[in-house]
């Protein structure tokens, strides 16, 4: 996916994205990080076509996003948002089946393929046994997995995740990131996600895009992007970096 000179303004007073150019590599885990309000979620929403840029182009497989039909695009890219209302009286399986929408029309559906895709999505997210449970009865971590399962049922090549770990406790955060890793490694999904936690970003990403004030400050493999100097400059935080065999590179913030 190619992103070229994107300018986005929500209110016409300032540019929330100010000339962003980058590319997303196929089959990799790309993580967008940066301080609050830096435009990372906006960038994700431009890539997922939820936000139309004022100028600039995003293209996928050499085709501009604006030229995709909505269902056609939904077969290429799925997105899970940070917070979702939980509908009442809906089973996990029913919600996940909504993910099949782009593959069906009102008159034509392939039930066999639908069932296969739904089973696969439920298996990936470890929800097979709970498929008939009501959404309302689930924990926060399980709910997040259900939304991911719905996105998986779309069977797209790209999966976007907007701050998937924000409202979860540490156990479910790790569980979710391991799931993302599995999806990338075993099922070849291209992952684009927005994360807050720098250490998680270092550990789970192939490629990091660091943003500040609507610009990309640095991007590349984690150890090139995340350095003492950059963290000081972007977040205004003093941090020490360490590396050990078990953990790899990690950061400990010292103070402001």
């Amino acid at each position, binding site marked *: 996916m190619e992103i070229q000179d994107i300018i986005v303004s929500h209110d016409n007073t300032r540019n929330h994205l100010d000339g962003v150019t980058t590319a997303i590599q196929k089959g990799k885990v790309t993580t967008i990080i940066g301080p609050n309000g830096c435009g990372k979620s906006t960038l994700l929403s431009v890539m997922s076509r939820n936000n139309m840029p004022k100028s600039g182009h995003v293209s996928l497989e050499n085709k501009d996003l604006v030229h995709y039909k*909505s269902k056609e*695009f939904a077969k290429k890219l799925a997105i899970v*948002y940070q917070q979702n*209302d939980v509908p009442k*009286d809906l089973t996990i399986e029913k919600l996940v089946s909504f993910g099949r*929408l782009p593959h069906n029309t009102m008159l034509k559906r392939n039930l066999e393929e639908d069932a296969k895709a739904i089973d696969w999505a439920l298996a990936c997210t470890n929800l097979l046994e709970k498929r008939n449970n009501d959404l309302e009865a689930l924990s926060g971590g399980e709910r997040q997995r259900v939304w991911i399962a719905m996105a998986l049922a779309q069977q797209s090549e790209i999966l976007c995740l907007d701050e998937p770990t924000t409202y979860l406790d540490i156990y479910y955060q790790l569980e979710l990131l391991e799931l993302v890793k599995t999806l990338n490694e075993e099922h070849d999904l291209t992952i684009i996600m927005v994360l807050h936690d720098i250490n998680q970003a270092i550990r789970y990403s192939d490629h990091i895009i660091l943003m500040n004030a609507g610009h990309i400050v640095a991007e590349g493999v984690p150890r090139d992007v995340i350095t003492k100097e950059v963290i000081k400059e972007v977040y205004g935080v003093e941090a020490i970096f360490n590396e050990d065999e078990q953990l790899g590179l990690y950061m400990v913030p010292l103070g402001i």
Partner: protein
Amino acid sequence: MTKKLVSFTIVIVLLLVTVVYAATTGSIKMGFFEFIGALFDKGNSQMEAIRDLRFPRIIVALFAGAALSVSGVLLQSVMRNPLADAGVIGISSGAAFVQLFIISFFPALFFMTPVLAFMGGAMACALVFALSWKSGLSPLKLILVGIAINAMFTGLTEAFISLGGSLNTSASSVIGSNLTMRTWKDVSTIVTYGSVGLVAALTLYSWCNLLVLQDKTAKSLGFNVARARLLIAAVAVLLSAISVVVAGVISFVGLLVPHIARRLVGYDHKVLIPFTALAGALLILVADTIGRTIVAPLEIPASTIMAIIGGPFLIFLLRKE
């Protein structure tokens, strides 16, 4: 599963019982077996009177109830708001006003009454939507805007009738709903348009189900949210407009019936819409039958009975919000 089945069975049985009771009760009385026998007896003069006076009234009540309730379900789904009801938020009174206004000036357009009512309802619906959109269609805001719109159109209608005086002889039937003196012509109007609306509503069930998702999530599935909203709202307006044309403004049905229906058969619109149609038909027929028998020979309009039950029910729902 069994709860759904039991609910459907009970409503259908009650519906049949009420239809027979409504047909055999009033100034002309008949026993059940006498009634069944008379149904197939062309010469029975009592049956002729029932056929001409009560059958149209019963059919109109059934269809108006079904149409208004289903319109409530659809509006609630489109606005993602459990308090939406065509009567409460002014769609019915908008339909009533526009229809009355245009017919008064262009009586020749009388045959287009359903279309005019639809336009009026659509106008009111668009107004409510536009004015409460900014608040994210929050239930309370929507109700406030809707009540204001409703008051405006009701006021306009009343003012218009006062000014017009003798010009509008048929006007009073528009604001107060009374199901007396319905004819087979009314039946054919409501059955034709009502069936179109109800069938359309049934085919839109999967869209209604998808609208429980947030807009951005639904969009990310390639679902055209705007188009779905527009179409479902149009069907809802059609259903409420057609019942205004034939049965007048009846509020609260679209609020009460779907709410109870969800408790009984759940939130899946595939089941909810047909159940709501049946339960709504039952409710209005019961209201109308009580209204015309309780203080006979005087009559209490079905809309009045619905207002008496519906008002407290709305307060109950608002407290729960």
